[in-house]
């Protein structure tokens, strides 16, 4: 099997799994308990918190554990909207956010908030002039993702953060795809709140964090206990926290090496596909993109068919086609970068890990070539294209 869907989730690394193991059957105590048996668990939670904070240049007491990226996004946006509603009810986000952000914003619209969805350019980069122009006296929050989950484009977070700071507006970023993969610093990038998730960088599923800058006064999202400085109730997911902390430590140690290897393979994959598959295009920015992300469109074919045939070759990938989303519309991200529907339907996302080899990439590209050719041979769109020679 060749696993190229690491943006969906990653394998838990062996070191992470080893670090987690004692917290199931041995150190199972509730970290909040008073007896000494629980002390070790709380110590492990604190250590993980520090490692996670270090990766983004934050203080440990600014890290709040959650159940994952979606919860963190929901918390940041809804709680900020609640806390700042006397100042205003206007929120700015982008058209290419993850649904955890988009659907939360849509929910707030129903509650009487106004949301501006700033457009992106053809590479998926936020239009900074449009963002600045969208700011109003009643704007209370800007939420823009650090890097896009589909096309991998990395946003100019430092510029966005500086703008928000200058205007005195709270800035949240969904860094679920970026954390552990690219350098981040909440002070240099003027980030007030940041969401991250453990399972996107070789940690376990079901654990995430929300970074909340000291002084940002947003309320609790989950009520019921004094955990996380009374801002997020619920017994600590000790093993998950330890796993995410270990993954953060490893990510910090190996960031350079890991991303250099991934970028080399990613660019090799992109070069081969664009050169060897006719009528293909790369989606997302050529260089300002996540080290492990490649996203293509192949004209005249549909993504789900491509995925099924790749699966039969043992290749796990994903697509932004309507068929994989359960609706009739293809990915909102591909439409936002200006692709027509019929081209957006033929998308393929390949996301690498540190375990992927050049041989894997070669095998995958060869498979894509054969499959695309086969699907085109049965595509009426391709038939028309060949006969008419038109777009």
């Amino acid at each position, binding site marked *: 099997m060749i696993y190229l869907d690491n943006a969906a989730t990653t394998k838990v690394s062996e070191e992470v799994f080893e670090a987690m193991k004692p917290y199931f059957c041995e150190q199972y105590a509730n970290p909040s308990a008073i007896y000494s048996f629980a002390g070790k668990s709380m110590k492990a939670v604190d250590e993980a918190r520090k490692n996670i904070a270090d990766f983004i240049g934050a203080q440990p007491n600014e890290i709040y554990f959650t159940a994952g990226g979606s919860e963190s996004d929901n918390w940041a946006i809804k709680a900020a909207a609640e806390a700042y509603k006397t100042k205003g009810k206007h929120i700015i986000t982008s058209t290419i956010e993850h649904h955890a952000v988009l659907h939360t914003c849509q929910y707030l619209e129903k509650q009487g908030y106004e949301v501006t969805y700033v457009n992106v350019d053809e590479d998926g980069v936020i239009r900074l002039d449009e963002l600045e122009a969208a700011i109003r006296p009643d704007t209370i929050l800007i939420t823009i993702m650090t890097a896009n989950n589909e096309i991998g484009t990395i946003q100019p977070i430092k510029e966005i953060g500086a703008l928000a700071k200058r205007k005195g507006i709270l800035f949240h970023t969904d860094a679920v795809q970026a954390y552990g993969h690219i350098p981040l610093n909440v002070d240099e990038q003027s980030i007030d709140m940041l969401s991250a998730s453990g399972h996107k960088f070789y940690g376990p599923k079901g654990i995430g964090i929300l970074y909340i800058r000291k002084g940002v006064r947003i309320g609790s999202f989950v009520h019921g206990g004094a955990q996380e400085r009374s801002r997020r109730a619920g017994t600590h997911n000790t093993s998950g926290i330890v796993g995410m902390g270990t993954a953060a430590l490893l990510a910090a140690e190996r960031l350079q090496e890991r991303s250099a290897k991934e970028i080399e393979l990613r660019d090799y994959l992109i070069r081969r596909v664009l050169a060897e598959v006719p009528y293909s295009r790369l989606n997302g920015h050529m260089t300002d993109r996540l080290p492990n992300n490649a996203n293509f469109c192949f004209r*005249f*074919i*549909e993504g*789900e*068919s491509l995925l*099924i045939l790749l699966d*039969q070759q043992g290749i796990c990938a994903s697509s932004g*086609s*309507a*068929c994989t989303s*359960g609706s*009739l519309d*293809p990915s909102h991200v591909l439409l936002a970068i200006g692709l027509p*529907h*019929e081209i957006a*339907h033929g998308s393929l996302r390949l996301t690498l890990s540190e375990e992927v080899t050049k041989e894997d990439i070669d095998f995958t590209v060869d498979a894509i070539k054969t499959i695309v050719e086969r699907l085109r*041979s*049965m*595509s*009426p*769109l*391709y*038939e028309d294209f060949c006969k008419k020679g038109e777009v």
Partner: protein
Amino acid sequence: MYSEKVMDHFNNPRNVGEIENPSGVGTVGNAKCGDIMRMYLDIDDNGIIQEAKFKTFGCGAAVATSSMATELVKGRTVQQALEVTNKAVMEALDGLPPVKVHCSLLAEEAIHAALWDYAEKNNITIEGLEKPVSDIEEKIEEEY
């Protein structure tokens, strides 16, 4: 997610291709939604479908339903072909996931569109056949 029969017809689609100078050809669906089916029919003087071919842009279910639809109309009379409904296509494939039911509707429409073209070319009326709604060629004509 898909039945074995769907997978079989997706992996080994029957009757893929084109027919030169077909008795009838129809294209249905739209690229916006991600499904386009084109069906070619060769119908002899006795009104029997001698050959059926298809080309499809779409998901696994779209390919499988097109393939099954061609199988179901081959060797049948025009009237019998009209009775090949989306339900018949689905049943022959041992069912489809709920989100893919529209693919079988498209297959039924593709048959109708090809038959409509055949009727128009031969200036005949096929009893019970209505002008297919999502015929791409028809839509283009309407726009002009």
